[in-house]
């Protein structure tokens, strides 16, 4: 298949493309899902992260 001798390698080739398409379709379908609110815990975490980075 596709000039590839072994069906297991051909399967890997197709699965690479298939899983990429799966990712794209998932990303597209869920583009606006999952919430985008920033909570206090997130802001607190980010402020602390900045402090930790400053140490470096």
């Amino acid at each position, binding site marked *: 298949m596709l*000039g590839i*001798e072994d069906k*297991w*390698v051909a399967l890997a080739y197709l699965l690479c493309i298939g899983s*990429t398409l799966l*990712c794209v379709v998932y*990303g597209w379908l869920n583009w606006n899902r999952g919430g985008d609110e*920033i909570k206090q*815990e997130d802001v607190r975490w980010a402020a602390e992260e900045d402090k930790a980075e400053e*140490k470096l």
Partner: protein
Amino acid sequence: MFFAEVNLPDIIVVLLYVFATAYLGYLGYRGTKTTSDYLVAGRKVHPFVMSLSYGATFISTSAIVGFGGVAGLFGMSLLWLTFCNIFVGIFIAFIFLGEPTRRIGHRLDAHTFPELLGRRYQSTFIQVFAGLVIALFMPLYGSAVLIGGTEFITTAFGMDYNAALLIFAVLVATYVFFGGLKGVMYTDALQGVIMFAGMAILIIYTYVKVGGLVSGHQMLSDLKDLTPPTLTAIGHQGWTAMPQFGFGETKYNLWWIVVSTIVMGVGIGVLAQPQLAVRFMTVKSKRELNRAVGIGGVFILAMTGVAFTTGALSNAYFALHGPLFQGRVLKMVNADKQHALLQVMKKSPSGEWMDAIKETSKDGKALTNYVAAVKTDGDGKWLSVAKSTNELGVVREGVVIPAVLDKAQPFLPDAVGPNQPAQGRSISIVYAKGNSDQIIPTYIRLAMPKWFGLVFLLTLLAAAMSTLSSQFHTLGTAAGRDVFEKLFGGKTGGNSNRTIYIVRIAILLGLVLAVAVGYYAKKEQAVVSIIARATAIFFGLCASTFLPAFVGGIYSRRMTKAGAIASMLVGFCVSTFWLAFVKVPECTVIGLVKKSILATAPNWPVVDPLFIALPLSLLTVVVVSSFTRKSDEAHLDICFSSNKKNNETKI
């Protein structure tokens, strides 16, 4: 060497690239810089920028040069790793691990991977132990990226390996110590765009040069009778076939190398990578993770998918367009396809044909190559070079290569007595002088236009830099925040000046260690590239030690502190034991044993530690957690309760 032949358009392309990178870096520094800055300021960053910066940080010279070269040697079976990279490393990781990691990390105010584990299980031991494992073993992964860049520099500038390693290490040290630890999103994203464009050009150019997609694959399939005997002996069945599967005989070794070490070791190991887990915490929301899945999948396909396909197809390219070797046909392997074994010969200044000879040490390392006068029989016919071994065990033999004879002129017109010199092209590993890490750099140098080679070089170096800085950032925080502050810092978090000192020392030592590994690795070059091995060791070790405790910790309330500690200890001890006493060639390089303790049991010495350690570590966590005490409910509620229950205020 590129530099000898560079012209004005090449210089313009490179300068444009450098200026664009510098300008975007300046913009990044002037405005908001890091992901946390975006979070604090509540600003929005386009998911393309976020995903590309993520991809550029995590895909480095290790994946492209190291594993691409392994594909050039072993073939397209490595595409199973690309599938794992996309399906496990992106789809599963982003969808199933991303959000719980982000949420629990933020709720517990964890800023490093060891801190996440330590706080989830309320255990200082877990944080310190995880920090130590990362600080001690990260240099190994760092060395893989360092070697990848070094191999490219040696090819591009015709430089000595050790000199290139040193120069690259100084560049990295300068970059890391002068503030390069913070990821600047827009420069990372530009690198991502350039890498994407570069890889797209690479695959299109490669397919065009080998006659198209199906024809190119077919041509690669047709080369299988040119597989070197050392590889067929361990189960190589051609570049478009899986290695021979089975257990209990040497001829199955390659299957276990490809599947257990390369595909599973790295493909599954990615789930417990400290840098990856920390990146999930820097993402603003689940929505951003959802958006990043599609872009991440395409990016990984463009990186490892292209690198592995190109690596394998480079064999077909070289067989069609590679520089010609001249010599005499020792044996026609396939007369229809003009496949032959060629004793390489060179003409002396006086016009005489000389045999190319190579010397190899008794443990298989290449020593010297030279030419010697051809011996003839009574009729003047050239004799094959007799293989001999001296008293030191040094093997002397002729340089014999698999070759596809040149279609236009398979035999040279100037016959010498009864002898007819021939000419042909060979496979990638021959052009890379037996070093799979050199396959991609050699292919880029010989096959691609000069300007592309230069941009690709800069891109790879930039990609290596961004990955290295993130590796050393993780190493530094593990040593400073997770080990030093936890052990000696007291409840207040310790003296920050002393922590900074520890972090810097740790980074410097890590860098020195990475360079040392890079230096000695060159001397211990084995069948599979050192880049791939070092990466696989680190990924496998992380998975065996951290994966059950990490995944269980973010998903299950039933996971106990004792279960996590036992699982981490079992995973780490079994992995290191397997590496030090069983796995070949790692055990002989470590030096505690002269040969694998399972040397007489075929295949076991090439089974990856992950195959043994991960199931045991998983079993341990389940068994120990089932009869030990859970964390207190209040803590588990903070980790797992829904947002409404937690009564968080939205801003």
